[in-house]
């Protein structure tokens, strides 16, 4: 298993290399001279030259590229052009908030979506099924900032159950209160996706020959559902959760803005505003890495769910 993980990570190297290259190119074409950005409009010509030298942007482009790759691999992503602190530190500071939010959203989404989708499949074409289908369709139609604003209006501004801004104070209770609305916002949209996939995958599985075999054996229907059907039905759900991460990241950017919660999303928006290209580079790498990692996790999960993949 460890050998496999190593091999998979090695396979991700070309992807990461391509990602880094794109990031490098993007950063170079971004309008604005980084040196100018740091020193401001009143900088003297000498200061600019010195700054360019310090940043390495005066070197030939090929050399910059080589430096960039070497540094990226060693985790030296440079210093923020705005705060002057190392990018790794800037990203590391907000990363836990984003991980908290993402993980809790995925958990919430799965906890709501899987039972709802299963129930809906079992009552195909009944009233409940229609409501669940339409409801989930509505759920995934929400732009994340729209639903966030509505949650904010209802629960923070009108009802005042939750704080209007921020990731909360230091205590666990405060943190929980602060993360609840963002989690609900992301989790419900995700639950909508999971519900739909679970439903259609469950319907497909329930029509399979082996379900008929289990019925022909006299296995109680409850057992058929849980032991025979659900595990097979979850295989596509895992795929969707994996694919959903890209959407989730985008949605969490919007959610963080609305709830004014620190995290990668807020960081990337402010870095864009301030043309802080070293931070942007670092963040692109983090995002790409996260997606590669999740793809790996998805594949490993298949291995555990589906014996056809596990052994041969």
């Amino acid at each position, binding site marked *: *298993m460890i*050998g*496999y*993980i190593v*091999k998979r990570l090695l396979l991700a190297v070309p992807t990461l290399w391509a990602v880094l290259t794109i990031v490098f190119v993007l950063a170079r074409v971004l309008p604005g001279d980084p040196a100018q950005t740091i020193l401001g409009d009143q900088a003297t010509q000498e200061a600019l030259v010195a700054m360019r030298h310090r940043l390495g942007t005066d070197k030939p482009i090929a050399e910059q590229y080589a430096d960039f790759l070497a540094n990226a691999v060693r985790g030296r992503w440079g210093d923020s052009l705005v705060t002057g602190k190392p990018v790794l530190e800037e990203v590391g500071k907000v990363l836990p908030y984003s991980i908290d939010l993402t993980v809790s959203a995925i958990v919430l989404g799965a906890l709501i979506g899987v039972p709802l989708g299963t129930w809906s499949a079992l009552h195909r074409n009944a009233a409940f099924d229609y409501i669940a289908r339409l409801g989930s369709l509505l759920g995934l139609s929400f732009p994340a900032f729209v639903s966030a604003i509505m949650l904010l209006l209802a629960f923070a501004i009108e009802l005042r159950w939750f704080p209007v801004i921020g990731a909360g104070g230091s205590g666990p209770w405060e943190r929980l209160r602060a993360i609840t609305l963002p989690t609900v916002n992301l989790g419900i949209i995700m639950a909508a996706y999971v519900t739909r996939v679970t439903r259609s995958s469950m319907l497909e599985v329930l029509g399979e020959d082996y379900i008929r075999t289990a019925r022909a054996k006299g296995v109680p229907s409850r057992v058929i559902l849980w032991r025979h059907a659900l595990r097979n039905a979850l295989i596509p759900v895992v795929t969707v959760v994996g694919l959903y991460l890209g959407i989730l990241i985008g949605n969490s950017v919007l959610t963080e803005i609305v709830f004014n919660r620190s995290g990668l999303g807020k960081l990337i928006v402010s870095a864009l505003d301030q043309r802080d290209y070293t931070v942007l580079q670092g963040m692109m790498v983090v995002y790409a890495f996260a997606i590669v990692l999740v793809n790996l996790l998805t594949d490993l999960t298949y*291995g555990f769910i589906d014996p056809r*993949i*596990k*052994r*041969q």
Partner: protein
Amino acid sequence: MPEPMLEVAGLRKFFEVKRGFPRATTVTVRALDGISFTVGAGQSFGLVGESGCGKSTAGRAVLRLIEPDEGRVAFKGEDVLAAGKERLRALRRKMQIVFQDPYASLNPRRMIGKALTEPMRVHGVGAPGERVARAELLLAEVGLPKNAMTRYPHEFSGGQRQRIGIARALTLEPELIVADEPVSALDVSIQSQILLLLQGLQERRRLSFIFISHDLGVVRYFCQSMAVMYLGRIVETGPIPAIFKEPLHPYTKMLRDASPVPDPTRKVAMLRIEGEVPSAVNPPAGCHFHTRCPHAMEICRKAYPEWTPLGDGRGVACHLHKV
């Protein structure tokens, strides 16, 4: 023996397949491991064997729908495997294929008339009006009414679709048809309709057939000679009457005796040999059949038997029949 329409020699095709998790290993499927046979003009040659023996691969390799790794295919003396793009296109007019599954062999979004005139258009045969007339004639020849021209495949039954598939194969006036299990997917009463249709076409048009089937009864009825394949190799070949009278290879005999006959006094031989059937991924050493052979000897485990020609077009690869 009439002049050969098709000569195949030493045809080989290996597939590489990646399998396994977490660590994938590459395995080689020896789908075709050097097969040779000859189809006489106006003759039907049966290619027989069980699933995974390589008979379908052989049919497709002959037509270069799958590129073989090695070997020689000569159509009326012309080297098919060496043909360039243009020659191959010309050869395709002469060699056609009929498929097993009538539900997969027709484009569901294409009207029958289009499907039948398209080959002529692509190859620049006839004027547009003529093409339609010829397509209608072809439909009549396979027993379908003219109004089928303006219908779509889903409006036809399996047997009718098979007729359309045959008509399509005939559009370019081919001389050789590879029929890949053309009746296996059909109901019994439809099977015989199609067999009779093919037989009539063969007589009228002097067609040659490579008739691929797992059903010995159908091959016995339709073909003049046949080859039996096992795990990528031909184990026995010869004229139909001789093989059915006295199969030489133990596998041929096993196949014949296991084929059910509609006669309660001749029940199928209930085989005592159990165990897993080996696959072309990892064929047993020596004679591939020795693991299931009732006559297996020491030598069978070690060496693959050489091909032994026996005269009258017969030949066998078995240590029991060494000259």
